[in-house]
């Protein structure tokens, strides 16, 4: 479709442009030039001869998707994933920007590692926004240098996977983050109460004889963090929220004027704890799959606007880390390539959530969480990050075709509706479906 002539301009012709930031839903042409959105105009109104064009008829043209929560595993664990392989999977999933969690080896608690992750040599095909550790070594004791981390490219801080439980440390982190102007992301889990737990506490855990994590172990941390955020005048972002109780805590925090945002994962709105079945380690992640009631509450909150973003918590692991006793298996599943399909299949087709809202959860929502300027929107002058997808295409996800280095997902063989057709990063095609 596209003619290869390169003076940097690309015209996306005839697609249905969904730009939630502008409440725009119309058939439009989009012109990208010099890495920016040059023009969005009704069909055939963009004048001049354009070097390359892309026939987007029948497709949704959306701002590039932003994933707030991805584990790229570099530095240190390239046997699970590399920045190159992880971002290739991201592009295949329609993501033009991913936030890289700091639980690497060593932990990304320094400007040097943050900058290293952004080097051209890493081979990233989408934008990588490091989220740095909030405390040195993510040990929950001494804060890192937020300002230096921000200068090196960090967009937020978190001790993901090792939540900050100490009130004073969390309070300090929030205060410093408020001064610097970025949010603190928290994996809300009172790990003092979840030691030895490998799934959600409920009927399935009881049946399988597995120790379960209570919903309160998540919600109580959210509740406390919201209070601390209010006192500090800071922004708190709740990572991969998974329970109805935590949603209540978010809503209560907002009523008390705390600045709280939250994300949920596709697996938490698609599956319940029953998916663990007979010790299927592909259904083991943290936070764990929850009850049907929690899942239902999340679906409501996705529709009504309580939830700001869909994030994948893409967590690749090698086979030998999953092919072990359930209690010993690593937590986490991959998710970059199935996120859009699951969102459209579950949220749009089944729950009738409008496409504009779904696109918002992938674009304007996460951009707002981080205060990313020029992303998550197709307004003129924005970065030329665009995701084109076919909202009614049926396809089957096969892990052997995944671009990730890992295969740990419960969605292998799932039939999904909604398929990424092309992912454009900075005006260049980063992914194109066969």
């Amino acid at each position, binding site marked *: 479709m596209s003619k290869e002539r390169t003076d940097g301009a690309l015209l996306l012709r005839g697609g249905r442009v969904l730009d939630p930031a502008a409440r725009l839903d119309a058939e439009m042409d989009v012109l990208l030039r010099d890495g920016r959105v040059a023009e969005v105009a009704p069909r055939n109104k963009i004048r001049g001869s354009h070097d390359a064009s892309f026939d987007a008829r029948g497709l949704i043209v959306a701002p590039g998707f932003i994933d707030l929560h991805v584990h790229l595993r570099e530095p240190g664990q390239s046997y699970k994933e590399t920045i190159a392989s992880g971002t290739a999977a991201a592009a295949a999933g329609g993501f033009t920007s991913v936030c890289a969690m700091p639980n690497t080896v060593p932990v990304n608690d320094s400007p040097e590692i943050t900058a290293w992750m952004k080097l051209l040599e890493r081979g990233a095909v989408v934008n990588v926004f490091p989220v740095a550790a909030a405390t040195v070594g993510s040990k929950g004791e001494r804060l890192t240098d937020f300002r230096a981390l921000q200068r090196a490219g960090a967009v937020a801080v978190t001790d993901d996977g090792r939540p900050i439980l100490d009130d004073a440390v969390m309070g300090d982190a929030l205060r410093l983050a408020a001064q610097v102007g970025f949010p603190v992301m928290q994996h809300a889990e009172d790990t003092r109460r979840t030691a030895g737990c490998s799934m959600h506490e409920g009927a399935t855990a009881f049946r399988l004889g597995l120790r379960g994590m209570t919903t309160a172990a998540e919600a109580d941390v959210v509740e406390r963090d919201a209070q601390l955020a209010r006192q500090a005048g800071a922004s708190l972002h709740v990572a991969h929220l998974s329970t109805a109780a935590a949603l209540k805590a978010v809503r209560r925090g907002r009523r008390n004027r705390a600045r709280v945002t939250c994300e949920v994962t596709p697996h938490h709105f698609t599956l319940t704890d029953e998916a663990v079945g007979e010790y299927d380690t592909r259904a083991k992640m943290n936070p764990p799959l929850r009850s049907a009631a929690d899942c239902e509450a999340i679906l409501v909150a996705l529709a009504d606007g309580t939830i700001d973003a869909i994030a994948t918590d893409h967590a690749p692991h090698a*086979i030998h880390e999953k092919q072990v006793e*359930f*209690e010993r298996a690593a937590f986490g599943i991959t998710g970059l390539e199935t996120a859009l399909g699951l969102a459209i299949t579950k949220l749009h087709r089944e729950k009738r959530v409008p496409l504009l809202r779904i696109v918002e959860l992938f674009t304007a929502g996460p951009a707002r969480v981080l205060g990313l300027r020029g992303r998550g929107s197709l307004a003129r002058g924005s970065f030329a990050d665009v995701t084109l997808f076919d909202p009614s295409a049926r396809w089957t996800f096969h892990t052997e075709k995944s671009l990730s280095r890992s295969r740990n997902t419960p969605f292998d063989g799932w039939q999904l509706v909604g398929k990424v057709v092309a992912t454009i990063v900075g005006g260049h095609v980063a992914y194109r479906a066969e």
Partner: protein
Amino acid sequence: MKRRSPTPRRKPARRSRKARSLLGMEGLPAEEIRTLLRLARRMDPHKPRPLLRHRRIALLFYEASTRTRVSFEFAAKALGATTSVIHASASSIEKGESLVDTGYTLVATGADAIVIRHPAAGAPHLLARHLEVPVINAGDGMHEHPSQALLDAYTILRHRKSLSGLRLTMVGDVLHSRVARSNIHLLSAFGAQVTLCGPPEFVPDVAATLARGLRITRHLEEALRGADVVMVLRVQKERLASRKLDAAEYVAGYQLTAERLKIARRDALVLHPGPIIRGMELTAEVADGPQSVIREQVANGVAVRMAVLAHCLGVAR
């Protein structure tokens, strides 16, 4: 994911197509349980039958065990099998070999079946997914202990005609008990009326979801009224402590005493999977009393495990 064992199976002709694993009581058809119990009645540990001659059975024990390990070993030998006991502490497992790799190794060295005891729930299921020999669960974490449930049912049936309609009370730490889970599945499948009794820390409300018709009560007297069988579960001191329960309070509320046993039917049986802790979950008087069949349970363990091995290896006749 499923990898075949690296070398071709030897002696395919001797392998029966009926070979199967025993991973748990959950979902096991009542007919298969009946077959196993019928088979156990024909097994006599003192009259060896060479049904498993030339067969090799690996007893893979990742956890300490006396009665289960010994009775599986005696059962295998009474059937003429060669056995090898592998302890986690004295094998390659200590060097970091994974469970699945240990399984491949055992099969490669010629094991025809693996009996496994493991502290992690679901470990036998993992093994069974990757191996083509029968895997027999001899206790996995807090999950199941199917051969124990079979020998409990076998013991009850030595004294009662049928399990159907039987009123059975289970007292103690149900939450941490693999014996409880297996027994609940088996007994419910046969239409026994099961009542669970204990403090919420040991008998959470969610326990009632394990099978249809389960009842929970917090009062031992109420639980014992009209009971045909009282199954007492072990209560570990450290579990009481971790749940912030006071041992004296537990004893006061839930210990099975001779006095309390009188509330049950006069001929009610007392079972306990062992090891018993006298003075904790039951008194010595009850443990050694005329209604106790605790030692009988242990004795029946060998015949029942002979039946399990013969059945799983497909040689039962």
